[in-house]
């Protein structure tokens, strides 16, 4: 029995421990990608979610295995939390055949349909109507799953966001919209690009509940998402949740971050959600500092192993180029 933390009933102490490791796995994965990118070992582009781990891990921990997600261009965290293995992810970033998309998708197109991850998306707001459609399937086929739809503050100014929330609401679909407001859509700050105080305030327009949560508090996110997901599962329709968070890195490659100050970055780094989660679990007596360190090391090692796996995976053959355009 947990002393101070309230969590959904299916969340065990063991789950909280694994969640801690999961957040480090996300962080180390993206830190490693960042290093390889700088060295020119990964090409194309990539968007890192370092600093945003609690909103991915906390939100997805609230789901059942049958539930589905749609993700974004900044989606490595969502992917890991929904059960993808980092070997296949790293191999994809290396463009190899053992990658999740056989090397044809890369960072912004990783999907893991078996685990219910309908995919990252290279188009801002592109996944939002897709989540609505997946929720429609659940309703029409009575499959009982809920779709958790991730997107960013930038996407909330896309037409697809407004059309989708309205449609999901009038049809009472089992979908929960979660906006990871990391304060910037590339260089455009949310203050500059959006007049409302909270993106969650927009829920009013679509006749659904809107909730603001601390995006660095994995427990608060988990509880809020859990309530919204169960509400949706019972047929009461969608909720819009906004998690206030911050991306530590730039938007993608070659971002000099001229649009924000180093002081602002330092302020957010001090609020590191992973360390906060660790302190909470120690305080609860769920694990010791030594155990926490050990889990962190294990996560680091898993990423190192993923790199080895990726490096050893073959390049796709030129013959594979024309495969899979049509079913």
């Amino acid at each position, binding site marked *: 029995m947990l002393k101070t933390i309230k969590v959904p009933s299916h969340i065990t102490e063991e789950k909280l421990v694994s969640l801690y490791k999961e957040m480090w796995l996300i962080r180390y994965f993206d830190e490693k990608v960042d290093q390889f990118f700088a060295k020119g070992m990964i090409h194309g582009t990539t968007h890192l979610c370092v600093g945003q781990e609690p909103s991915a891990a906390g939100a997805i921990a609230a789901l059942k295995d049958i539930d589905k997600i749609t993700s974004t261009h900044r989606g490595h965290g969502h992917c890991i939390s929904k059960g993808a293995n980092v070997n296949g992810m790293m191999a994809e970033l290396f463009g190899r055949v053992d990658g999740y*998309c056989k090397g044809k998708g890369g960072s912004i197109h990783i*999907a893991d349909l078996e685990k219910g991850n309908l995919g990252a998306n290279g188009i801002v707001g592109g996944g939002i109507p897709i989540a609505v459609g997946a929720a429609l399937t659940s309703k029409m*086929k009575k499959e009982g799953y809920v779709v958790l739809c991730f997107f960013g503050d930038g996407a909330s100014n896309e037409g697809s966001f407004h059309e989708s929330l309205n449609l999901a609401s009038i049809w009472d679909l089992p979908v929960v919209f979660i906006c990871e407001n990391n304060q910037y859509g590339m260089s455009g700050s949310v203050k500059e690009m959006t007049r409302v105080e909270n993106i969650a305030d927009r829920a009013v327009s679509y006749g659904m509940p809107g909730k603001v949560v601390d995006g660095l508090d994995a427990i608060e996110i988990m509880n809020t998402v859990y309530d919204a997901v169960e509400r949706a599962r019972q047929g009461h329709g969608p909720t819009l949740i906004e998690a206030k968070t911050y991306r530590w890195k730039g938007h993608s490659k070659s971002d000099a971050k001229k649009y924000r100050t180093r002081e602002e970055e330092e302020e957010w780094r001090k609020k590191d959600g992973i360390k906060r989660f660790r302190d909470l679990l120690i305080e609860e007596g769920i694990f010791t500092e030594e155990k926490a360190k050990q889990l962190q090391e294990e996560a680091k090692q898993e990423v190192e192993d993923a790199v080895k796996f990726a490096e050893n995976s073959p390049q796709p053959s030129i013959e594979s180029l024309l495969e899979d355009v049509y079913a």
Partner: protein
Amino acid sequence: MREITYLEAIREAMSQEMRQNEDIFILGEDIGVYGGAFGVTRGMIEEFGPERVRNTPISESAIAGAAVGAALTGMRPIIELQFSDFITIAMDQIVNQAAKLRYMNGGKGKVPLVLRTPSGSGTGAAAQHSQSLEAWLVHIPGLRVIQPSNAYDAKGLLKAAMDDDNPVIFYEHKLLYKTKGDVPEESYSIPIGKADVKRKGKDVTIVATAMMVHKALEAAEELAKEGIDVEVVDPRTLVPLDEETIIQSVKKTGRLIVAHEAVKRGGFGGEIVSVIAESEAFDYLDAPIKRLGGLPVPIPYNPHLEKATVPQVADIIEAVKETVHF
């Protein structure tokens, strides 16, 4: 055989499949009790109910995207897009999502959806409700593009489209909705990617699509009186294109005219001409190829101007004569 309209053939194809397959449903604007802007879905909500004939808000991006998401998770949606011009608003979901998801995922997942939409001019609906934009979609790997020209083809090709596991763009033509033809009552399928020779002839080949098939046939009747024997080939599906039937026809006649309503510049006719230019049929040509297509202007409102924008029977007759007497 029983005669029904092109519009009824489309409705019948959908209704027959929906009776067989619970996964098929239709979504779009005003498709419920209103019966759709052109009446194609009339009576369907009464038979299938509002769960399977889903009346939507005016939200083309969400309509298309919801269909993509539903298709990806096991349904087989049919989108009715009220006018094909509105594909502009649904384009991200069709081009960047539906067409590419399977490939981007390394062959995992499929997006079996049909987007039905009326195109073409001739109704006085002017510039934003009369376009023929099929060439845009043809350009996108991952999509299939179908353009039936009569009731029989419409029913059989729509059945094939609903059976297909890929996103299919199904172009209907507004002026064809009321045209009648022999259509079997039972369900049947026409293979996607099979052209149809609508009229056999030996002097000149006209490859025409949608409304132009009818205009080409009318021109052929006139020309027959002057002893010119015209063959009319209807590709029926633009992607995949039945190149072989077109090549064989041109090898036989040695002359080619391509006619479509879409703007000639960048139109699909250029693709057909290129197929011939790159094939062995090129050596058989006895005259330069002619392309007939829409003028490079937005479709005007005034009926005389509207008519003058797209090729008419007289234009086809003139082109055939120039080609034959080259």
